[in-house]
């Protein structure tokens, strides 16, 4: 059983190292700047931050790849030298990480570790440090491990899976990034922050029942004014009603799909007096529908 537990560590460590490298790289590619990646981590606040960040990313990549490459027969003939070097290097890497995280937590308590790019902006806490320590221990137990083989029986395979699931659960519990990832997966941008073109708002307005109701009173083809208050975009058309000049104000709720709610008010163009029953008075203008 102990051998199974040790076997699992190699692939887990490799996945985490390569995942950490990929998320940092992805952040740098997205922002076209290594500096942006450094900004998410408090580990390298000083001038050598950029080369240190690159070195860390490269180390993660090399160790992750090395763990996979030396896991099988090719690299590790019992206590083969390349496998031992990579595994000792991995253990050292996580040991240094524990010390660096602890130091950063004391010096810059607001800084995130940046371990997984911009997912790791939560200030460093005991969970992040413990995770590094657990991974260090995981790397230590792999030293001297014989080459990996496929499970010899169904029960061994089940033990593999159970150990993997248990360890993944532990790492998930120790990872503040998990909450951030779940938030992003289920994230829907609030309507106040949604960027929608004016043309889309006008198209939605022109296909609404409110527009058809007031279109006969509108005297211009283009709106006289358009502005936005949070979730609502307001469109003003000049018009004539009851023998006088009016401003017809439409409020269109900003949503990308379905028919958005549209409300309307008619105002005297000279006195701004509201004519008839207004629907806009009940609007919470900035935020709520």
């Amino acid at each position: 059983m102990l051998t199974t537990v040790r076997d699992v560590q190699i692939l887990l460590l490799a996945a985490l190292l390569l995942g950490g490298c990929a998320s940092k790289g992805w952040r740098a590619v997205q922002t076209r700047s290594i500096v942006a990646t450094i900004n998410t981590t408090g580990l390298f606040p000083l001038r050598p931050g950029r080369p240190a960040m690159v070195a860390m990313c490269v180390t993660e990549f090399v160790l992750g790849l090395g763990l996979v490459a030396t896991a099988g027969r090719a690299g590790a003939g019992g206590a083969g030298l390349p496998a031992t070097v990579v595994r000792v290097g991995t253990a050292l890497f996580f040991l240094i990480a524990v010390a660096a995280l602890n130091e950063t937590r004391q010096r810059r308590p607001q800084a995130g570790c940046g371990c997984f790019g911009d997912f790791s902006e939560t200030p460093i806490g005991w969970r992040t440090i413990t995770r590094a320590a657990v991974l260090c221990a995981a790397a230590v137990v792999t030293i001297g491990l014989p080459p990996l083989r496929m499970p010899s029986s169904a029960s061994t395979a089940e033990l593999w899976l159970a150990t993997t699931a248990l360890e993944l659960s532990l790492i998930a519990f120790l990872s503040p990034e998990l909450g951030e990832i779940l938030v992003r997966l289920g994230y829907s941008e609030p309507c106040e922050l949604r960027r929608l073109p004016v043309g889309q708002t006008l198209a939605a307005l022109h296909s609404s029942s409110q527009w058809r109701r007031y279109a006969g009173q509108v005297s211009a083809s283009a709106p006289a004014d358009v502005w936005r208050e949070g979730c609502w975009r307001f469109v003003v058309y000049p018009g004539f009603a009851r023998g006088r000049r009016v401003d017809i104000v439409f409020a269109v709720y900003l949503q990308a799909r379905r028919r958005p709610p549209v409300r309307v008010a008619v105002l005297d163009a000279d006195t701004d007096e509201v004519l008839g029953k207004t629907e806009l008075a009940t609007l919470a203008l900035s935020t709520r529908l």
Partner: protein
Amino acid sequence: MAAENDAGAGTKPLAHTVMGWILDVSPHILVLHTRRGEQRLPLAACAQAWRGGKLPPAALRRGDHVVVRRRLSGGPAVDRIWAQVGRVAGTIVEREGPATLLIDEGPAKGRKIVVIATEAAGRIQVRFPRLEPGYLIDVIGLKHDGFLRALIPATSQPPYRAGHPPAPPLVSGHVPDPVSGTAVWHEPGEEPEDLLGLAYPALDPETSCERAGAAAHGAAGDLHAVDPHATGPGCVRLPYLSVGSMLRLHNECAKRSQLLPVTSCGAMARLFCDRCVTCGTSRKGRIADLTVAAFVELGGVLEDGCFNATMTIGG
């Protein structure tokens, strides 16, 4: 109990603030030339003046441009005077020698020259360790012809380059209302100097300043200039509004509130992901860039540079 003053909707007269040029000053009376003509203002016994540093009001110079605040508790007596005060906040685009900087304040405001005063160099260098192109600076000082003599760091320099502010945390559901953060002030530029209002950092990109601003700025083609409209939402998520939208701003330090209109585009404020520590530590990010008149009416102290603020959309 918060003091309430709803006088300010851009055009109404200022309740506590007077701006003008000094015609005469004595220990008891300040005579100003203002847009409304000559005004004689009694000085409170405890009146303080600032002209690069604190000094007695009688030591101010004729011809100085001043911002004067009457007692917030009421009455005509003046208790604070700021002479020749100016501020520059933006991206450093050029540095000449150890003390002369060219600062880009964004597409709307253009560029200004800052000369760091010798006596303030140490203090500014501590708060702004990277006085080099591409990094942000925000300093307060004395206005001179064509440049600002920087004397006070208005904030600490963010560690990132101006074009890479950190992304704000995601918001689920709706944007919080009210929203808390930092309120700062800016020089009037082309606005009337007694305008009560604020530059809002998140104007609707479809109908407000962003498109024109971005096009104009792109033409400058400067290596280090940063177009604030192209750098994301900044570090605080604010709902999109338009020029003319009304906001109620509360100064948590002076316990004063006021209903203010959005009068201009404050996209540059999005680049500054800082906190105000005037009274406690504010939440991160600038939520309002006030006109001088609005800042002073709300009880702000100009040389402090900011106050901790809470903003309610629509009042």
